[in-house]
């Protein structure tokens, strides 16, 4: 493979990787830190994308729409966790199988709900930065939409990483992941903290949805593709590590875009990349690249 092609692939991979990291951030909190088998995370993201589209028809810029949406999605997330807690975690026994099945069902309901409401057609948004590209020299053109998403993804990752490590609540969330019983002894209510964290995870999914629809058209079934990608990133990162999530996103993005550009592999092999990576990590190093 020619060197300039490889360079282009790596460059694209970095942009794509940051996007993957950003859409996985929420899952990194809900699954990585809280141990909730949140298979519905990508479905909530697609729901966020559709809400962004809906706001877009009223003239909202997709990024602003995504930021606005974090508020209702935060509340939605708190609600979902409360329900999950009452129905499964509190009863204790056998939450594993039924918890997974529960979120799987939720994902289905969201997916079909979107189909019933908006049909199976692809939706896209309009914004000044969509459809243009800039030349950065050496004949490499980068689409503006990818660059915009890259910037938003970086900002979001930075904010979340800082929040988790610097603020009181962020540290409390990390603490609840480490030792719930100890937290209870300190006089804090782990359920409330988890509920808060799940709200943040869902808000991150809303913003992720906005990025999803900026980067390309969205249809209700898109969540099925992203189940693999987001879980691959979170597992690869080592559960719950924020900086690890960014690194894992980059690994996935770069390897996917190299396969995409590779002359003898190409687009039809690209979807298998994330999953092969995931299987390898699960088989060889289950604690992830940056795990505890």
């Amino acid at each position, binding site marked *: 493979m020619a060197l300039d092609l490889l360079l282009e692939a790596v460059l694209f991979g970095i942009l794509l990787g940051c996007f993957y990291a950003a859409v996985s951030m929420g899952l990194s909190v809900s699954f990585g830190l809280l141990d909730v088998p949140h298979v519905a995370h990508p479905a909530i993201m697609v729901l966020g994308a559709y809400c962004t589209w809906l706001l877009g028809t009223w003239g909202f810029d997709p990024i602003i729409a995504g930021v606005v949406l974090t508020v209702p999605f935060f509340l939605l997330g708190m609600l979902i966790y409360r329900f999950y807690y009452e129905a499964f975690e509190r009863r204790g026994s056998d939450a594993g199988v039924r918890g997974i099945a*529960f979120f799987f069902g939720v994902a289905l309901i969201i997916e079909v709900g979107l189909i*019933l409401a908006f049909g199976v057609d692809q939706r896209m948004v309009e914004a000044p930065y969509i459809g243009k590209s800039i030349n950065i020299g050496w004949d490499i053109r980068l689409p503006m939409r990818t660059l915009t998403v890259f910037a938003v993804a970086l900002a979001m990752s930075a904010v979340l990483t800082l929040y988790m490590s610097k603020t009181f609540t962020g540290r409390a969330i990390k603490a609840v992941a480490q030792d719930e019983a100890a937290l209870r002894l300190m006089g804090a209510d782990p359920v409330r903290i988890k509920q808060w964290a799940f709200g943040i995870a869902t808000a991150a999914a809303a913003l992720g949805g906005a990025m999803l629809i900026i980067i390309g058209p969205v249809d209700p079934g898109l969540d099925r593709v992203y189940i693999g990608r987001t879980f691959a990133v979170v597992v690869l990162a080592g559960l719950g590590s924020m900086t690890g999530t960014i690194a894992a996103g980059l690994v996935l993005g770069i390897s996917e875009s190299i396969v995409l550009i590779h002359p003898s592999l190409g687009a039809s092999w690209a979807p298998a990349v994330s999953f092969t990576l995931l299987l390898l990590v699960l088989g060889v190093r289950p604690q992830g690249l940056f795990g505890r």
Partner: protein
Amino acid sequence: MKFWIGIAITLAITLATVAFVNFDYFFFAGYTVLMFVMLATAWNILGGYAGYVNFGTPAFFGLGAYTAAVLYKATAAPLVVQIAAAAVMSGLLGLVAGLLTLRLRGIFFAIATIALVVIVETVFINWRYAGGATGLQLLRPALMWPFESYIKMLFLVMAIMVLASIALARYIERSWFGRGLRALRDSEEAAECSGVPTLRLKVFACTVSGALMGACGAPMPMYLSFIEPASTFNLNYAIGALASPMIGGTAHWLGPVIGALLLSSLQQLVTVTISNEMNVLVVGVLLVVFVVAAPDGILGLFKRFVSRK
């Protein structure tokens, strides 16, 4: 003994239906319902008894279907040979998957099985001989005596496979395999410490479950006279296979059978009367309701009802 009489009666009814009913749509729809009964029964061996959630049903089912299709294209092998080959291939896939995911539990195992689906699908999308992404048209072979329509024959074949897999699931449930699997579902550590060979049992359950799913997929190319990756590796098979035992009850072999009969018949009804999207919604809602409100499924509800009297 009662069980075998039940099997014999069911078989007799099926034969009578095939002999006397002349309504092709009934067999078309019935085939799908039976197929989901078999998938649910196969899923339950690993998912219900051992407590490992398998989203990979489409991988095993699809590999079985493709094995049959490719074998038919290459050698025009009869259906029985296709089914046997499909069971072997998918059983091997189950063996490999089981070995690869030995140490994974809970959600990690579930995610790994999703990965399996995408990887197998990608391989077939890129395999030109098997039709690639556009698919493969297959001509059905000439009819065999005594059948007057091909769909009736497939219906009967599927019915026999369903009964066989139910008998197998029941055997596993009652033998030491089943007891071992239940032990490892309740606590893998405790089972291991009591001398249950948990790893071997898990791989065994993976293999048997996969082989049954593969056999179940084998007649599919003949049923459609066509095969293509997107619908063959559709996640809907995983949904049906997982939802039916959850709704029917996972602890007993009857659970997935009841769940699948109910769910697929309902789905067929909704698809015909309302729309294809609604039938997926029905599954989703039923799944959530049952998982939350009736953890032991219909069988659990029934047991509670009986013991209260």
